């Protein structure tokens, strides 16, 4: 009933308009930020913009193992598909790595390692896609989220990434650690999601 009434009201309102605005024809380049895109290559630009939002980029499992050990985040989850490549060397470095995520133990996982299906250089954003990410919760509940990214999947701009969204019912762009400034405008990281967002670029 509401549907018909709403559409009828809208039709009455819009048909009374003398002129209707055409759909603007524009080049996506108007949305590009030149200073954000400056740099030698996509990888460099991505890492710089990720650092600007307090994210970290790493290029080796050894570097990740050292960071987790030093920060005392020694127990976590790893996507089974990434276990051979990342879980095994982390375990060898003395960390506890599980390949199942049990909801009832959501606070036990100090780090979570999942796949990113892409990234955006312009904004330092990681792209998590339901079809490629093993567990949404493993990228949310641990203090440290490690998104494993293939270098060749970095998009140059936000507009490029939108053009390549694909068909997944759920995609999330993550630009730095979870944060708030609700209390007196003071920036605090790690509100509900991770306080550390890492891109492990392979």
């Amino acid at each position: 009933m509401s549907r018909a009434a709403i559409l009828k009201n809208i039709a009455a309102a819009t048909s009374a308009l003398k002129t209707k605005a055409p759909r603007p024809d524009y080049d996506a380049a108007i949305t590009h930020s030149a200073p954000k895109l400056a740099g030698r290559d996509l990888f460099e630009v991505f890492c710089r913009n990720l650092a600007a939002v307090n994210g970290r980029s790493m290029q080796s499992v050894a570097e990740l193992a050292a960071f987790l050990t030093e920060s005392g985040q020694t127990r976590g989850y790893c996507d089974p598909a990434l276990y051979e490549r990342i879980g095994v060397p982390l375990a060898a470095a003395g960390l506890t790595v599980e390949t199942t995520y049990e909801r009832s133990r959501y606070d036990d996982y100090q780090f979570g390692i999942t796949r990113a299906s892409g990234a955006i250089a312009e904004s330092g954003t990681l792209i998590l896609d339901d079809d490629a990410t093993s567990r949404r919760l493993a990228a949310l509940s641990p203090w440290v989220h490690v998104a494993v990214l293939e270098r060749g999947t970095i998009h140059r701009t936000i507009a490029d990434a939108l053009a390549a969204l694909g068909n997944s019912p759920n995609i999330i762009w993550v630009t730095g650690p979870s944060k708030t400034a609700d209390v007196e405008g003071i920036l605090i990281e790690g509100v509900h999601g991770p306080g550390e967002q890492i891109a492990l670029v392979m």
Partner: protein
Amino acid sequence: MFGTQLIDDYARQISDEKQASVLNGSASGTEKRYQVLHKDYADPDALRQLAGAIKDHTLHHLGDYLQLAEQALTARGVQVHFAETDEDARQTILSILREAQVTRLTKSKSMAAEEIHLNAFLSENGVECLESDLGEFIIQLDDDIPSHIVKPIIHKNRRGIAETFLREGVASDYNDDPQTITRRARVFLRKKYMDAQACITGANFLCADSGRLVVVTNEGNSRFGLAPVPVHIALVGIEKLIPGEKDLAVFLNLLGRSATGQQLTVYTEFINGARSATQPDGPEHMHVVFLDNGRSNVLASNCREILRCIRCGACQNVCPIYRQASGHAYRSPYGGPIGAVLSPLLFGDRFPEFADLPKASTLCGACKEVCPVNIPIPDLLLRLRDKAKRESVPSPAALPMAPFAALATSPNLWRSAMVMSKVMNHLPLEVAPIKPLQDWLGQRTLPPSKGGEFRKWMKTRKKTENLKNAALPDRRLD
């Protein structure tokens, strides 16, 4: 005769402490926005104008786009509902929850849900609806209402929040360190997420071509709220539509920068269906409730440009009246310039109740300058003032204009009034036993009159111009 308006009464009631919080919060928001937009773009105005044009186009073809979005969502298994009024929306949501046997849910920040007073309604009907945005969570604990679109607790400080947490059992001792406050909310809320049976979100945008709705948060609360539950209900105002995904590049780049001075909000989630078959987390059922609640009437009015609004709060931050009066003075979820236009229109059946709001503006134009969708807010405020006059809404603060009109149309009368005004500079007005004059002076300081200066300047200017034109006949103006 010179009574005060409702908004003035509210503005006077707020404490110095609260006013300082609002002023600091909004001023820093304006500063951050300006810095980031001008650092990242050579011509941010071009982007704002484009965004306004895309929104105008969408609104002028809203029926088509709404049906397109409905088709796209339905094709992906999403159940689409339409709610003409706030009551329709509340009942629709309640019946979805009843059918799914939901009694506990979390909700991420939604202005549309504030507008229809959803929390109170669900609670009366036995459904626990917990706000998960940190600011909104604190608002809910205090039984307060948000005073800013993106910074709902801009009017609160850490001491009040720490007291609330102690009183409501979120914390076992008093601690007002912002980091501790945030960690305590983290621990408390994740239990609630895992225990909930549904999640209600709003939407920042809805792409008509793919049905993708876009939800942005910095905290990750909507993502966390959705991950463990089987049911997702999105409450979406019909003005949230944009034609296609391509257009998101324009809007996402403007929204974060205008709202919080960020290039992008931390979490930008694109949803057009239940979770993937391979994904163990996320809802199995998705509902979209399209809310009209007066919007189609606004579309029919001469203030339809206000429907372009993407709820960034930049106009609130920059507004000199908002900064002094705070959001609560506007008596609806929408404070500041956006609220001064939107509330009298959306709640049109109660127009006289909100008719003072369009007058709560100096018409300085700052709100139009910062608006990411280029809404001519000052023009809309004038149209609403005109509406109030035409509909004879009584106005306690209106000055009788007839004597002024008489003065202003008679050069002789005007000349003598100018002389009189100078005489008034030497009269002790502050002790004159005239009640209306005392009321008026009680709130204002009368500057010394410089009556007649303009006329003097104009006369001299005419003489000089005539001389110039005689000397240089070729440069005479048409």
